């Protein structure tokens, strides 16, 4: 959650007493909130709360919530960032929830009691979302064990092959951790855990069948044109089989695991990174929905049930802190919760469907109320089936956009400033969806593992109107080269020109391509 000034409380008794008291008070609060949560019809995992210091919180958060994760310096880097932001008062993490069964939640020890109440209510919102949202249904619910297992495996490799070597490979692998198929969380091959690279190739020699014939009859029984045609067919087929993957594939990590000529421990590292990327993907895919849902429920529970008079101000202060936004950014908490409320309101009043859409009288539309009362039911349905993309696509309305003053901004190179460029609903929606598509990453396919018939790798960037950052793309190609170990190519569009970027192991090159099919 966003920033807050730390609240200092006076110690009334000894430290130990205090901790003990807090534990008791907290478990009382927890019990109280669980009862409200159930009353509202939420269905969270069993949730375990742990109180930790800010230092521990920063550590846990650096590891993405899993203190037993594999060792890597980037977690140390994350730690520095979090610690410094905490130190300079830029931000403070109130809570951290882990998608696991049972669900684990870390609470900051220094939070005031009112904060803890709000945070616990918030956590239950997440816990319910993890359990019931469709996009999480394929995630590993014993991920805490799994990640510890990953950690052990990589530590073992470090022991065996040396820190430098394993770290070098990890550095490269992490460069491509986003090259998975984000929108195919259900796809069958993504579950394939066993990579059989030694499967024998079917290589039975195919020849065109000739009918037996006498010499003088041969050209009638086996007409040369026909024979030629058949031969071509077989050759084509062979050619096609040499091409792999058969279809362009977005899960490039999987392709590399299956096809790259690297050692098994290296494949295992790629597999670990891929597994974790798929585990974290739904969280990024539902950021707006998930935070909105948790915020919706913490504010509901706090304001309707358990807010005592003397902490109204603190609550209001921190709640508004959570929902504050800078002009240049969208706060997912705010957008999410407001959209849920809007949906609830519309379905309560029946502001949907053909009749409503076709109504042209603005006054009538504004006062529209059929008294359906379907709001609550509807938002539960939304939280079950949507992800951020469908959430925005299906439920963001013109009126909402207007009321909440959403706009599109763009970088203006002449003034060196970000400027508001549009408030048009379609444009806002298009831009939002673009941001969310593939989670804001460029869409890259692996097209050919035997490019130019020289075992080179060909990747293709599906251009969606925005160019790649060239220098970084080149560095990434270099890292992929280290995995693939043959020249690596990327087809992309730069300044409206179709280009092939290549790294051949010693240097980068750039080549303009003709129009390709």
């Amino acid at each position, binding site marked *: 959650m966003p920033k807050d000034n730390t609240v200092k409380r006076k110690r009334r008794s000894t430290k130990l007493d205090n901790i003990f008291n807090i534990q008791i008070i907290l478990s009382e609060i927890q019990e109280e909130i669980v009862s409200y949560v159930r009353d509202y019809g939420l269905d969270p995992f069993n949730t375990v709360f742990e109180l930790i210091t800010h230092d521990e919180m920063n550590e846990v958060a650096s590891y993405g919530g899993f203190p037993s994760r594999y060792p890597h310096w980037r977690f140390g*880097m994350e730690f520095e960032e979090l610690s410094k932001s905490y130190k300079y008062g830029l931000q403070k993490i109130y809570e951290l929830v882990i998608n696991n069964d049972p669900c684990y939640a870390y609470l900051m020890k220094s939070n005031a009691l009112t904060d803890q109440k709000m945070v616990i209510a918030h956590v239950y919102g997440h816990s319910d979302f993890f359990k019931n949202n469709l996009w999480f249904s394929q995630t590993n619910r014993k991920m805490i064990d799994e990640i510890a297992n990953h950690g052990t495996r990589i530590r073992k490799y470090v022991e065996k092959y040396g820190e430098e070597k394993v770290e070098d490979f990890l550095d490269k692998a992490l460069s491509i951790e986003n090259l998975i198929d984000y929108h195919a969380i259900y796809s069958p091959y993504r579950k394939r855990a066993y990579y059989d690279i030694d499967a024998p190739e079917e290589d039975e020699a195919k020849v065109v069948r000739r009918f037996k014939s006498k010499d003088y009859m041969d050209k009638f029984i086996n007409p040369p044109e026909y024979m030629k045609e058949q031969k071509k067919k077989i050759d084509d087929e062979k050619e096609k089989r040499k091409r792999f993957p058969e279809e362009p594939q977005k899960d490039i990590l999987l392709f590399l695991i299956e096809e790259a000529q690297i050692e098994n421990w290296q494949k295992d590292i790629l597999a670990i990174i891929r597994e974790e990327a798929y585990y974290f993907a739904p969280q990024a895919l539902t950021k707006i929905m998930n935070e909105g849902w948790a915020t919706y429920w913490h504010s509901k529970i706090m304001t309707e049930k358990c807010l005592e008079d003397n902490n109204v101000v603190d609550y209001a202060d921190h709640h508004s802190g959570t929902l504050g936004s800078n002009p240049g950014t969208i706060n997912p908490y705010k957008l999410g919760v407001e959209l849920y409320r809007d949906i609830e309101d519309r379905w309560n009043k029946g502001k949907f469907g053909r009749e409503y859409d076709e109504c042209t009288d603005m006054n009538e539309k504004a006062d529209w109320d059929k008294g359906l009362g379907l709001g609550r039911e509807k938002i539960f349905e939304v939280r079950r089936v949507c992800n951020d993309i469908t959430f925005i696509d299906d439920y963001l309305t013109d009126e909402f956009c207007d009321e909440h003053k959403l706009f599109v901004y763009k970088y203006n190179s002449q003034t060196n400033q970000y400027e508001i460029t549009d408030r048009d609903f379609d444009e806002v929606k298009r831009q939002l969806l673009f941001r969310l598509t593939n989670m804001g990453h460029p869409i890259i396919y692996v097209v050919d593992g035997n490019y130019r018939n020289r075992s080179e790798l060909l990747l293709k960037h599906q251009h969606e109107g925005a160019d790649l950052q060239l220098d970084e793309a080149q560095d990434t190609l270099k890292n992929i080269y280290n995995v693939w170990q043959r020249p690596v190519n990327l087809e992309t569009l730069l300044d409206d020109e179709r280009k092939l970027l290549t790294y051949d192991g010693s240097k980068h090159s750039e080549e303009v391509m003709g129009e390709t099919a």
Partner: protein
Amino acid sequence: MVKRIEKDYARFRNIIKGKIKEDLRKYITQGELIGKKGKYLVSIPLPQIRIPSFRYGKNARTGIGQGDGEVGTPIADGDEALGVGGAGNQPGEHILEVDITLEELAQIMGEGLELPRIKPKGKSTILADRERYVGISRVGPESLRHFKRTYKEALKRQLTLGIYDPKNPMIVPIREDKRYKSWRVKEIPQNNAVIIYMMDVSGSMGDEQKEIVRAEAFWIDTWLRSQYKKLDTRYIVHDVAAKEVDRETFYHIKESGGTRISSAYTLCSDTIKKDYNPAEWNIYPFHFSDGDNWGSEDTKKCIEIITERLFPIINVFCYGQVKSAYGSGQFKKDLDEYFQDKKEKESMITSEIRDKDSIYDSIKDFLGKGK
């Protein structure tokens, strides 16, 4: 048990170590860093190692925002890293920039350059006023209004008067509700320092040379400011004659003609005598030139002033020789030769600054002794 994160953190620092020094080099030689943002604020990024990945470039710098404003209204400076849109907030997606104070910058610099802390000479005799916010008062300027306390008071009043309406919870504070932060003044003893910058502005010192002096002076200022509560700076320029100028003039003035360094040293010594009691002040004369002087007679006179009039009262004398196409570089040679086997050589630091890249080493020369 050593915490896991400490190991990863140490690893990260070790990778950066080689790197942070490189980065610092870059900072020190970049002129534009001196253009401070706001008062006393320099924005430096956190050291980060960016793992490269396929991502969108600059022409994709668009996003969605929320709030007021017409089309065309600027919402942020182009150099700021906006947390762009949508899902955002993913690790590694944003570069966090923190505004740090000069003090913190000095700390980072001290760490990077491995500078020792300065042991101030003499006793700290001067008392300075420091304000501290210690309490709450019913009167005060609006700028010090304590928002939460005021709000609470207003809420309390409305509740007791029964005019609080939960359906329309509007809280309007009246004069009696207002609470203000109040402060107390404390006297704290402090150490003071003065830097006297002297620069040769004769024809041979070009813009490039001055730029180097400027960058160097900025970092010296920053460091000494972190070591002393109060820091005065004085500026003296000279060609054949010396005069005191303000900061702006110091860096931009251009004279032609010859060079007589002794004129500056004389003025420096006079200035100290006039304004800075050595018992109360730590005194740092810095002199920058391209090494040309009128002749060996004048150089002899310079050394005389330094040893007899300056050394007894200053902390250390620093001479930085900036390389220029026209300068002979003789002056530093003369100084070094003279002080080589003298016992006062501890108080004399000379450094040659060949180009922007060597500013880093030169600062270390000057400040690395902890004087």
